[in-house]
């Protein structure tokens, strides 16, 4: 049993290596996790210590990516910012996956009016542009990183629910589900023990692909001052604060901008790769 | 009558190989057979290579597979060396294939009539109007009562038996000299199957052409075909006249016959086939 799992993981690993773009995405994501974990070791300055004598210094051997308007080291802030980014995206995913699955799978499994009600609610959420919706929520909830997480999560669950519903519909009439029903298995058991393992790959893929938009939304909220609050380092807020000095100090916006681009691209590539590798319909 | 006795299809030592990570796997090995103006059944269990054989003759094997043979001759064409363009001209025109489920073989967004007419327009460069006339005549020939109406139906609007008759008319409209039917009736009910087979039977004898009938159903092949080829693990274990199938000598064929529940020879327990490694080698 464990051997079979190991073997499966090994096969997954082999097919990941065989897909260079996905593998590159995978490496960047692993890099992000490592940077966030070892931020105190990697950073060579205190990310929030201000030193106005050092303000707006260009990149040099001491300040690799220069300093910002308060004299803080951009490289160190970038490294610590990886924590914020990872914190937001992981938290959003952890909130959204079970909620999206529970709503979608319930709608798909029960059908009838439950399906109609749940799916119309989903449609209402889907009919707003996600950034605008996140903005509205985080403005209502007040600025702050936890509120940003809640606001983003509220915009991300509907597509997951849609997907979970579609997957549940394809499996709910399968013979093995009917067999379980005829043996007295209840709805909870069927959803969580029979449907979850089958939906999991496509939901994981979807969440990975969503990760980039989560990061972008988080950066957008930070940019508008609704996400992480100063002096906490956050890539979007960093890019925003640098835009006043765009012509004099290009590194202030460029460096976090590139980081956002790189990480969201990496998640997209990884998600695409995972779809090719894990989705049984492509096998 | 040399024309009559000459086989339509002659295959010598054909193998279909699939290269894989763990070496070359042969789905079909050293197959030799001929098909004349007759109904030849190919019988085998799943994985015996019977469908692979049918596809290899049409050169429709998967891209990864390799077909090798000493000879593969269809009338005047050498199937081993024919170019892809030549094969395209042969497929659907001189060799036709009928598959198990017409739903997957018909284009869902075209009416069935248009699809049948397309075949003659493509292969015989007939005009639209002439093609339509031919199609209606052909639909009538497969006992479709109201060909005008059926012509304008879409594939999802026809039943299984009607769909298979439409497939037959599509496959026969260009007057092929060989038809390969791969489990053409296993998706059909008994009564409809009877109808479809009798249409196929009539057309084959009327036009004096050859049929390769691939099936897993012993009773069906025995009663429908002239000759039966029995395949096991990619090889031919026995070729026998259909009428003499009950007297087959090979232990595999015997085993299959004994394993079949029968209305005429009921018994309490069925014989269970004991497979021998030698059958795959012989």
């Amino acid at each position, binding site marked *: 049993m464990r051997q079979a799992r190991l073997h499966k993981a090994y096969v997954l690993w082999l097919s990941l290596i065989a897909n260079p773009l996905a593998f590159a995405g995978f490496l960047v994501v692993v890099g992000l996790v490592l940077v966030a974990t070892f931020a105190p070791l990697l950073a060579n300055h205190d990310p929030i210590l201000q030193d106005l004598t050092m303000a707006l210094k260009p990149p040099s051997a001491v300040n690799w990516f220069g300093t910002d308007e308060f004299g803080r080291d951009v490289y160190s802030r970038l490294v610590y910012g990886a924590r914020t980014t990872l914190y937001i995206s992981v938290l959003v995913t952890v909130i959204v996956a079970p909620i999206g699955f529970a709503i979608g799978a319930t709608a798909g499994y029960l059908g009838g009016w439950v399906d109609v009600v749940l799916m119309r609610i989903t449609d209402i959420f889907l009919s707003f542009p996600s950034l605008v919706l996140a903005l509205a929520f985080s403005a209502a909830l007040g600025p702050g990183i936890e509120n940003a997480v809640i606001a983003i999560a509220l915009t991300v669950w509907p597509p997951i629910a849609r997907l979970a519903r579609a997957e549940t519909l394809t499996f709910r009439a399968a013979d093995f589900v009917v067999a379980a029903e005829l043996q007295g298995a209840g709805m909870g058991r069927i959803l969580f023990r029979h449907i979850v393992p089958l939906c999991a790959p496509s939901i994981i893929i979807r969440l990975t692909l969503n990760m980039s938009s989560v990061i972008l939304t988080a950066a957008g909220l930070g940019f508008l001052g609704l996400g992480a609050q100063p002096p906490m380092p956050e890539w979007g807020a960093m890019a925003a604060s640098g835009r006043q000095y765009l012509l004099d100090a290009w590194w202030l916006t460029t460096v976090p901008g590139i980081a956002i681009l790189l990480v969201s691209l990496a998640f997209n590539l990884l998600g695409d790769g995972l779809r090719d590798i894990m989705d049984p319909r492509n096998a | 009558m040399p024309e009559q006795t000459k086989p339509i299809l002659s295959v010598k030592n054909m193998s279909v190989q699939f290269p894989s990570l763990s070496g070359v796997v042969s789905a079909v090995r050293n197959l030799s057979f001929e098909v004349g103006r007759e109904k030849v059944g190919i019988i085998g269990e799943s994985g015996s290579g019977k469908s692979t054989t049918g596809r290899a003759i049409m050169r429709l094997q998967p891209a990864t597979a390799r077909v090798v043979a000493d000879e593969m001759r269809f009338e005047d064409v050498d199937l081993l060396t024919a170019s892809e363009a030549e094969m395209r001209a042969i497929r659907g025109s001189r060799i036709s294939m009928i598959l198990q489920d017409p739903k997957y073989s018909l284009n869902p967004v075209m009416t069935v009539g248009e699809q049948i007419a397309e075949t003659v327009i493509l292969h015989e460069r007939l005009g639209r109007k002439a093609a339509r006339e031919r199609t209606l005549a052909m639909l009538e020939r497969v006992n479709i009562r109201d060909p005008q109406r059926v012509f304008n139906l879409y594939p999802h609007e026809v039943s299984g038996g009607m769909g298979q008759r439409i497939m037959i008319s599509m496959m026969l409209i260009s007057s092929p000299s060989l038809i390969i039917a791969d489990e053409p009736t296993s998706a059909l009910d008994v009564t409809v199957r009877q109808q479809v087979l009798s249409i196929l039977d009539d057309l084959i004898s009327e036009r004096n052409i050859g049929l390769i009938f691939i099936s897993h159903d012993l009773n069906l092949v025995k009663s429908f075909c002239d000759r039966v080829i029995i395949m096991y693990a990619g090889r031919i274990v026995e070729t026998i006249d259909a009428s003499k199938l009950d007297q087959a000598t090979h232990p595999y064929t015997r085993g299959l016959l004994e394993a*079949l529940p029968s209305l*005429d020879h009921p018994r309490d327990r069925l014989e269970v086939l004991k497979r021998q490694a030698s059958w795959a080698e012989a």
Partner: protein
Amino acid sequence: MSIISVNDLAVSFGSGNDFKQVVKNVAFDVEPGETFGLVGESGCGKSTVLGALAGRIKGWSGSVSIDGEGVGPKRSRLQLAKQQMVFQDPFGSLHPRHTIGRTLLEPLEVHGLDQRQERVERVLRDVGLPPAFRHRFPHQLSGGQRQRVAIARALILNPRILLLDEPTSALDVSIQAEILNLLKDLQERDKLTYVLVSHDMAVIAHLCNRVAVMLDGQFVEVASREQLLQGSVQHPYTRTLLDGSRGYVPPRKLAS
């Protein structure tokens, strides 16, 4: 006393213009230890009757009593355990990501039964599979082995009735023989009652004591095995089905 007694069973789907009566007032009794067959062509309602017996189809009317107890469309756990179903497609009836052991343990968990490992091993032995198969996944098994697992899953709750929905029609002839023999062995040993749905008259005649021939949601005839084997059936439709299972009959021969 009959173990299954069905009266005036009717099933319909849809409403308004789509309304379709799939089963029209059928009635039959099945004796303990008997195999009762339902034969007919696709869409005749034979699987629907089986689904109503199993508790799978909810929208039926009429009266059904199983093991002396009247049952409705909604069943209690104990009522469900009295009859279990074996499906046609051995590839679709087992959860692809559950090991065989997990598939067999699940009904025991649902019903809170003890001695789980012993029961799983025993039922695997009963269907002729080694206990080590517990650790395998369905994709590591052949079609025949999967169907044995499906039978094991149906048997693990010790039901008195097995509902067999075309249990061998997706299998090769030689595998079909093994499964049919297994079903006969199990029936003799445990005095099981079978209801078998099939389109193949030869399989029906091999397994069943009696068979109901269905056409368009109704029974046209209930024939005994002897009648089938001797060809002394009453209804022309039954005769057509019998001829069909012998293979192809050219119309010329039919006429003569």
